[in-house]
């Protein structure tokens, strides 16, 4: 039987590769590889051999030109040694093959700035939105309630009833679109998968610190129309066991953390559709 294979790209300032890979394994992937970007650029590792691509958290190139900007540029222009293609060609093929990409935090910033999200009508590589400095002007590490949009096409959120409780850890997480039309379309198509909300997952909120960055319409996560590409500012890989929860010593919690469901759904999707 074929294996469900996940890849986590690291290098140049990616920081969450260990826990992202751990979450993939717990989620049910048979194989998970942490690949340094140089492994991809030398052609030693190819995206084609995987089903689930994790673009995870960190500070790519120090976020020096704005979060993830330099990596977006690198992925666009860098050639793969020994192969007659750019890395972006592999990435486009990966998407066309119906495979999954999850961008978390810096990975979400990267996806949005490369144009992988929202990518209306499959127009990948055209940027319509961005993630910019938090309204509070500071990096924040705090936990947030994320109300799920049940009607979203995301393949990752099956079984999420009300929402998830996860940490955010970013300075540039404020979601902004290029136009009202873009926002309207995101709303109409239910692409805003998670929104910052009150503790009961009742209503989206613009209030700090529940909404830690001032995102438009409290959007914390975004998927494309196929639901296979998703990006989110909160860190699902940071809550896969109850001891990750900030109040685990005082609340009755299940053994598994809220974030794990996203990885389980990804593995299930791969098994059902890609193997």
């Amino acid at each position, binding site marked *: 039987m074929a294996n469900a294979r996940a890849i986590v790209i690291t290098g140049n300032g990616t920081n*969450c590769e*260990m*826990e992202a890979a751990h979450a993939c394994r717990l989620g049910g992937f048979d194989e998970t590889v942490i690949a340094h970007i140089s492994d991809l650029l030398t052609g030693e590792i190819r995206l084609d051999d995987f089903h689930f691509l994790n673009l995870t958290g960190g500070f790519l190139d*120090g976020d020096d030109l704005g979060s993830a900007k*330099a990596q977006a540029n690198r992925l666009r222009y860098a050639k793969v040694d020994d192969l007659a293609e750019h890395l972006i060609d592999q990435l486009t093929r990966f998407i066309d093959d119906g495979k999954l990409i999850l961008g978390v935090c810096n990975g979400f910033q990267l996806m949005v700035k490369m144009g992988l999200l929202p990518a209306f009508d499959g127009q990948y590589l055209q*940027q319509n939105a961005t993630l910019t400095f938090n*309204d509070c002007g500071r*990096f924040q590490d705090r936990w947030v309630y994320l109300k799920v949009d049940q009607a979203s096409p995301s393949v990752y959120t099956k079984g999420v009833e009300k929402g998830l409780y996860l940490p955010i*850890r970013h300075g540039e997480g404020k979601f902004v679109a*290029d136009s009202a039309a873009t926002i309207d379309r995101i709303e109409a198509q239910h692409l805003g998968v998670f929104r910052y909300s009150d503790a009961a997952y009742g209503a989206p909120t613009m209030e700090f610190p529940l909404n830690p960055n001032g995102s438009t319409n409290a959007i914390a996560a975004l998927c494309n129309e196929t639901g296979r590409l998703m990006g989110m500012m909160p860190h699902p890989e940071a809550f896969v066991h109850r001891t990750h929860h900030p109040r685990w010593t005082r609340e009755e919690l299940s053994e598994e953390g809220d974030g794990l469901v996203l990885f389980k759904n990804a593995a299930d999707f791969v098994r059902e559709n890609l193997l």
Partner: protein
Amino acid sequence: MARRIEIALKEGGRDARGERVRREIEHFLHVPATQVRTIDVYTVDAGLAEDELVKAASEPLSDPVIQTWSIDQPLAKGFDFLVEVGLRPGVTDNVGRTAREAIEYITGRPFAVGEGVYTSVQYLLSGTMAKSDVERIARDLLCNTLIQRFVILDAVEFAAQNGVPVSVPKVTGETRAQVREIDLDVADEELLRISKEGVLALTLDEMKVIQAHYRDPAVLAERKKVGLTGLPTDAELEAIAQTWSEHCKHKIFSGNIEYIDENGNREEIKSLFKSFIQQTTKDVREALGERDFCLSVFKDNAGVIKFNDDLSLVFKVETHNSPTALDPYGGALTGIVGVNRDPFGTGKGARLAFNTDVFCFASPFYEKPLPSRLLHPRRIYEGVVEGVEHGGNKSGIPTVNGSLVFDDRFAGKPLVFCGTAGIMPAEIGGEPSHVKHINPGDLIVMTGGRIGKDGIHGATFSSEELNENSPVTAVQIGDPITQKRMTDFLIRARDKGLYNFITDNGAGGLSSSVGEMATECGGCRMDLSKAPLKYPGLDPWEILISEAQERMSLAVPPEKLDEFLAMAKRFGVEASVLGEFTDSGIFHIMYGGRTVAYLPISFLHGGLPPMEMRGVWEVKRHEEPAFAVKGDYTADLKELLGSLNICSKESVVRRYDHEVQGGSVVKPFTGVANDGPSDAAVIRPVLDSFEGVVVAHGICPRYSDIDTYHMTANAIDEGLRNYVAVGGSLDLVAGLDNFCWCDPVKSEKTPDGEYKMAQLVRSNKALYDYCVAYGIPLISGKDSMKNDFYDGAVKISIPPTLLFSVIGKIEDARKAVTMDVKRPGDIVYLLGKTGNELGGSEYFALRGFIGNSVPKVNVAKAFPRYRALHRAITDGLVASCHDLSDGGLAVALAEKAFAGGYGIDVDLGRVLWMGEKAEKSDAALLFSESASRHLVTVRPDKRDAFESVMSGNCFSSIGVVTAEGTVSVTGLAGTTVVREAINELKEAWQSPLREL
């Protein structure tokens, strides 16, 4: 011709950076700025075609959704004044480096030598202000003129010259590779002048030892063979000065001290380090016997202990005080990325698992006049917090534990303690990972950043007090991404066995790193002309001692070299072969074909005679306050909760990523609203295991005003009791000592040096006494001995400060306990006795007193109690546990209650008392800081089991957790002496630093 690319926010876009600057202008400088907007400027000094420039501006350098760009067209408009701030030539420009790489990806060709991208930021100020106000804004807020420069234009000037003129902050100069010789055959005053003017920080005695070396005919003959005269070269003198600096050699800790106690008893101490610190570890290890878990102590960049059979734990804490005083952001950033390299350069190299930070500042609200050259404490606070934030967050290392300590004497020198722990496999390639060796013939390889003039004389400069002429080049700016790339690469190279030895390039640069490595095999030959430079114009001595950041030095066996270099290239890491290790006995440095330094290793590392010092102790009596007895202490408690040393530091802590790497178990904040202060951190370094690392610390400089012996005892006890509070095991726990002292050597500048030295001796004695008693081996540490400011008129000395860091293990992290009360009805126990020990307390400090009755640690009582508490925690009998420290019982009660969201009722009559009955009072029971106490809550159904585990120890049940959200304390007379709602107490605790 250089081109200016400007990036501005689109109309109506929110400018968070500008808003912050506007608030700061108003808050600090009281200038009414109505608006501040910002523009990013990239000055591109490279041969680019027009379409390449457009691509650069429109793609990587700007965000089309929120920004606009222009080339050679100023975007600024609608302002009263414009300030553009850029870096001075040669200062590390991280953003410029990233921009350059981005452009190289676009063009597909590397920049030519001398080409570069330089960044600056424009601040567009609106409001009623004079040019002199803007000067002040630029100088005191926007720009640190040590490393940055600025241009101010008003709207008229701006229009007249069509924007800000292009300027390229490129280092110009040519490499002449000059080597000077210095004549040491001179009079003593001349020797001293050479040392002083060269920032060598060598004493007359040391200069004379060097003079004698060069007079030795045998030395002369040897030197002749390699073409050198009998005069030392600048490179040699600099290398000796670095190696012998207080910073590198710890002369005070290794010198001879005559100590005289308060009764006139004399004692000869040969090396504080050997007599107390090393001896502690030796004695503890002997006592541990089979259970000894120390693997590598005091000999490497960090200490190594066993975590389990498969993994070793590495830990180091450093300080970076002097550079931080000059440039808080760069100094602190370099502090954190610098200490990262210590565990990384320990043994064969450790993966970095977490950081700890402790800062000591003067009040950010300080309002008294400061001597020139000293930055305002608020600026230091802001800069340090941001520097460590960038250093830690960008490196992907969680900051899990720390403190902010305030005392106005830290205006003279802020203290920035940065710690980093790492994890490494116990064995790599079949050999213990904490052991490394060098074979003659191994190649000297340097990886990472390039060498510039940054950080020249850092080691010697920090070995002197801060003064008006402290060198600018002593400041460096760290680059976490260059370092992260290097560590990503080196960890892989380690696992492939591509090198034999690794160490950090820190203080003293190559002269120290390669110099120390050369002692491993008995010599080296290194060619400085092979070292990659940031820009031309460095003389060999500068290359040798530059402290430019992000560099590791390695010994690579010749047969592995090709693979090592090829892998470095793939990872985008620069690696250069600088020479080879030998067994010649000589530290032999070349520049091209010419020898520039030829120093016998025996002389370089063994030639320094021990310093002779004297310490005389006297007991100082402080005024003992006599406060009237009060009927109600609620206001006192709230005032204490709002004092800087006790209040919440959440606004700072939330800026640090404490969860990256996915192993967070006990976070800095806990409780029902995630805002109660944890005692210690627990993390799981291996994600599929529940074995945890526990880290905590103790620091209490206020007690030094009474007696550094007890200051030290309390710091050790505080570190350990924090550690025990969350569930740390007493079978695997180690300590690290960081001494930050004011100059303790008597001299003209330090007439009270003998007292300060006695303080140091007493601190060391306590370190030995209490660590041995608690069975805590010291595994590493550091001292920083010149934390004074002196400008000829004003002298500010910091209070002697010991940071005691504690690291150890919790076998099952799922057993960890947090400090917040869990449910109404739980019984509140106070473990340990309380005495009239208000000397040096926060309570006295609030009223401007020091007092005399400093808390004393009783290990014989505390240690068995800690063991029993650990047993109770492991057995699951403890619902919550909080240590008592600053502010005593009252503060601990309040914190526990509001963190848990429930009230507490306690009766002071049930608190166990030690000492004279007559001294027992509500105030002492509430606010005394007696050591070794914990406040614990236990479910009623666990009461018997808990009491049975604790039996034989001093503890008493003093009250109960209540559903009503009020802290209520009954005094000795039976009346209520404290009563307040928990949300009021929390507000008092949270408000002081909330907005910083």
